């Protein structure tokens, strides 16, 4: 009986530890491979710019993401020339075909019409689990060596009307200037990534 309890406890600890996987600031993000909207596999190393990439968790349904879409495209355009690329990730089980790691039809159309950067699909939210991503929108900025430099919100105001702290742009500018990033993480209210049960 004791042995059974010990085994059960060990399994619970293992399960909790496995679920708590995430990447800390200063940690290195492993290269990953996920399909785009056509099913073609894309990797971090092939998509990132010489100065890094932003892994941006998005959703075609989340109203907060919708408020940020235009700003995301603007920031992506501003920093593409400076060697930082945007990589969108959709991990929402409700927006991905169950049988394939492809977007459902209207999501595919929405993404094509909305984003000026590549969006990849994370079937089973495996990648979101690995990074510890929970919210949309949520950004993970890695430098050219895949080291995590910033994690969290894009700015302090989802409406865009009163942005006083553009967290992501500030992190980019500091990293590009070779300066220390003052604020390496910030949270904001957003939508929960819809995970598989």
């Amino acid at each position: 009986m004791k042995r059974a309890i010990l085994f059960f406890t060990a399994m619970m600890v293992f399960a909790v530890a496995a679920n708590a996987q995430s990447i800390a600031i200063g940690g290195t993000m492993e290269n990953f491979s996920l399909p785009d909207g056509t099913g073609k596999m894309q990797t971090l190393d092939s998509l990132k710019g010489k100065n890094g990439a932003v892994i941006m968790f998005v959703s075609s349904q989340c109203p907060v993401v919708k408020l940020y879409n235009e700003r995301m495209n603007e920031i992506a355009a501003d920093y593409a020339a400076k060697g930082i690329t945007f990589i969108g990730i959709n991990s929402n089980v409700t927006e991905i075909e169950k049988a394939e790691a492809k977007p459902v039809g209207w999501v595919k159309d929405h993404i094509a019409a909305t984003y000026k950067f590549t969006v990849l699909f994370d079937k089973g939210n495996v990648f979101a689990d690995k990074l510890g991503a929970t919210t949309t929108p949520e950004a993970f900025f890695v430098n050219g060596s895949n080291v995590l430099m910033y994690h969290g919100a894009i700015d302090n105001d989802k409406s865009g009307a009163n942005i006083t702290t553009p967290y992501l742009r500030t992190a980019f500018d500091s990293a590009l200037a070779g300066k220390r990033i003052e604020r390496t993480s910030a949270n904001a209210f957003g939508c929960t990534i819809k995970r598989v049960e």
Partner: protein
Amino acid sequence: MQSLLRHLIRAVLVAALVVIALQVSNAQPSGKGKKPVWDGPKVTQIDIDGLRKLLKPNGKPVLINFWATWCDPCREEFPDLVTLDAAYKGKIDFYTVSLDDLADIKTYVPKFLGEQKAEMPAYLLKTPDDNAAIALVSSEWTGNLPLTILLKPDGTTAYLRKGIVKYATITAEIDKLVTPDAKP
């Protein structure tokens, strides 16, 4: 006689048109760009200091649900929260905190609460710094909605749920705080 009848019919038609016009004007926003105002529970605006007060229990366990009308899972779980409020009324202090835009405090937020027949005190948090508010609630929270937190009477966290609450789970957690332990 026929003339009198014609006048009567005309008067009835005019009266009917007036009634219809009045009903339409009441159902729609009166000015361009204005949002319709619905009757519903009072929603009180709070800032981060107001949130801090909510997080301080006053002798009873405190349950707080953070939600927004734009959040699908928040709307989905709300009927369970209303049931829970009725079941534990007087035993716990249960508040809802909306993260909707301030512009919705007299429109979509009370409309939804009214439709749900929600009676728990309702607040809308308006803060220039989401990050500070999120950190105040829990270091485990990144800001995704919904979030439900159960606080013990001493203010420490008894249970925290990111995502839709499971009724059986949350009530079991509350029961640990409000039901005396009957075991020997």
